[in-house]
């Protein structure tokens, strides 16, 4: 492990804020969906990208955790008949959340570099 990456990890460990893999995926889905980020499209986006069935309950649980930490905000839309009179809940990534995603990306890129097994982009 390069010394620099080691210090990055130590620096990161000092920060008590961590993202689980699913939280990171959910935040990336929000960023991809932009203004249309509510339950159904978020779950569909994650399913399409990960090729796994997603539990909507898990998506909401993760997003609520992120909202508590201030990385995501949500607001209710208008209730519609096709949803049984229930409103949509739109999520959006905050600037603080965006910064955290960037930091995570940088850290992961640094960690991926120099690993021969991961060179070339093949699985």
């Amino acid at each position, binding site marked *: 492990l390069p010394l620099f990456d080691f210090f990055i990890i130590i620096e990161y460990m000092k920060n008590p804020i961590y993202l689980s893999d699913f939280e990171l995926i959910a935040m990336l889905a929000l960023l991809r969906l932009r203004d249309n980020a509510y339950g*159904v499209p978020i779950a569909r986006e994650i399913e399409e990208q990960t090729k796994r069935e997603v539990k909507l*309950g898990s998506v909401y*649980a993760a997003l609520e955790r992120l909202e508590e930490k201030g990385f995501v905000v949500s607001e*209710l839309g208008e209730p519609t008949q*096709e*949803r049984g009179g*229930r*409103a*949509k*809940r739109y999520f959006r990534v905050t600037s603080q959340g965006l910064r955290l995603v960037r930091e995570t990306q940088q850290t992961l890129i640094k960690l991926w570099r120099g690993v021969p097994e991961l060179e070339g982009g093949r699985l």
Partner: protein
Amino acid sequence: MTEVGSPDPPKLATWLMEQFSPLLQNAPLAGDLVESFKDGRSSNWYCRQVFWAILIGLLNLFRRGWRRLRATPPMKEVRMSRPKLVGSLAIVLVALVTVGWWATKTFWLAAQSTHPTPMIFYGSGAMEGGRCFGCPVVSVSEVYVGDTQIKGPVPVSMHVPHYTPLAQKNKVWGAVVALVDVDASGGVAGVKLTKVDLSSSISAGLEQGVNNTLLTWKFKPATEKGKPVPATVQAQVNFFFDSL
């Protein structure tokens, strides 16, 4: 994918979701499920999602409750003066020692005895088969008052003398015989030891124990022509050991 285009999602699952939605505050999630179902998801998918939504919602509820509990401001720190602190610690120590002593006496010593409930005999021939491990066997016999034939006092409450740990350790065995004066009310007026026949000169407090215990006995008083009268009873306490 089954039931594509079905107008309504499964009723039971929807009903469950409606019951839990107010508690879990996940009405938008319920709306998402309905929308997805109308979009072509199967009934199985819907039911599965409802099950997980409720389960995850409940877990989330507990997690939030726990966090709130932990976030409660701590109690104001109370600084205790040194003498007060020492006093409190002493009280706690004394309480612990007392509880420990009581527990040892009650449970540990009781566990040491192979026969926690000694056998009690009354009347002649009571000693047949009266052997018992490390515990006293009590017999009461020859009820009499002078030369008069009367209906003797009948013991109603006979505490058994304690086989002291020291006696157990020295394996003391033998018998202690005593005359017990029973008054007209059935209480014991006096005890006189008439015979102490123990295997060791170290009596380990057995006679004293017999004397004290006999004083606590209660009797149905002796009667002469239907009237209660004082009487004397001879009591014998035998101490046996398994190794005899």
